[in-house]
């Protein structure tokens, strides 16, 4: 019986390890987040940011972002522009109510990080890379987007800007 103690202990450790999942930190999105877009015309913000933020600086391999914003919450600061933006000519908020980003990998890049993943916008899925930093429990990132890549009012390529800069600041707390 004594001879079996060590093999049993070894087996217990191996079996036990199967239930051990290395899980990176889940973060709760704070209320003071901002999702801004800017161009010569238009500029504005989105609200309704929600999803899961799973990030650990020491375990980037298992970190993951799966977030979305509500298209209907667009605010350009002008009521008429908001109505136009939500219409089927532009973002078509009824048909495509969410803009989603799901990361496939997060890697270190320079002094920050970059998240590579799929942006689902206006019914078009396109892989993008978002460089970002994480300091003082706040994610900050920015990237550029071309609306024509997402089939947004392709009939009028010269109506307003085609390239928009998106700036995202998301304060988080441990959940």
């Amino acid at each position, binding site marked *: 019986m004594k001879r079996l103690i060590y093999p049993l202990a070894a087996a217990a450790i191996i079996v036990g390890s199967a239930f051990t999942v290395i899980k990176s930190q889940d973060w709760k999105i704070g209320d003071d987040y901002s999702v*801004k877009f800017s161009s010569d015309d238009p*500029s504005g*913000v989105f609200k309704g940011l929600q999803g899961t933020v799973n990030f650990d600086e020491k375990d980037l391999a298992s970190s993951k972002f799966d977030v979305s914003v509500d298209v209907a919450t667009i*605010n*350009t*600061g*002008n*009521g008429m522009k*908001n*109505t136009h933006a939500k219409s089927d000519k532009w973002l078509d908020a009824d048909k495509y109510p969410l803009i989603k980003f799901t990361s496939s990998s997060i890697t270190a890049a320079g002094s920050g990080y970059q998240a590579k993943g799929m942006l689902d916008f206006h019914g078009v899925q396109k892989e993008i890379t978002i460089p970002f930093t994480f300091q003082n429990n706040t994610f900050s990132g920015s990237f550029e987007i071309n609306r024509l890549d997402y089939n947004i009012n392709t009939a009028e390529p010269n109506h307003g800007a085609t390239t928009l800069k998106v700036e995202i600041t998301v304060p988080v707390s441990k959940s």
Partner: protein
Amino acid sequence: MFKKIFFQGLAAGLLAAIASIIYNRIYFFAFGVNFSKLVNIPVLTALNLAACIVAAIGYWLIKKWFGPKADIIFNFSFSILSFASIIIPVSATLPFDLKNPELFPGLTVPMHFFPALAWFTLNPLFKK
């Protein structure tokens, strides 16, 4: 003559300001939107007074140049300019932290007619 016209402008400005402040409160309670960052008592008072003082200067100049036809020209001009000025709130871009910008014209467009309305209301009193 300018003194009398100036006081008419001042009185009309105050009346328009009071009307604007009351309308602002009614709008706030009716729709629950808060534009007080842009539309508040000091701003409404200053803008209505400024509009009516400018109108008074305009009336004085028109009266000098056109004599007996001044009232017709001034009334038409004041009404047309009031109407044309609604393009300002309709096309304004508000700060992004203000919610429901589509309700902003509903608050401010009627206010653009208050200076003219106040002027025309008080005009008979200053004609005597």
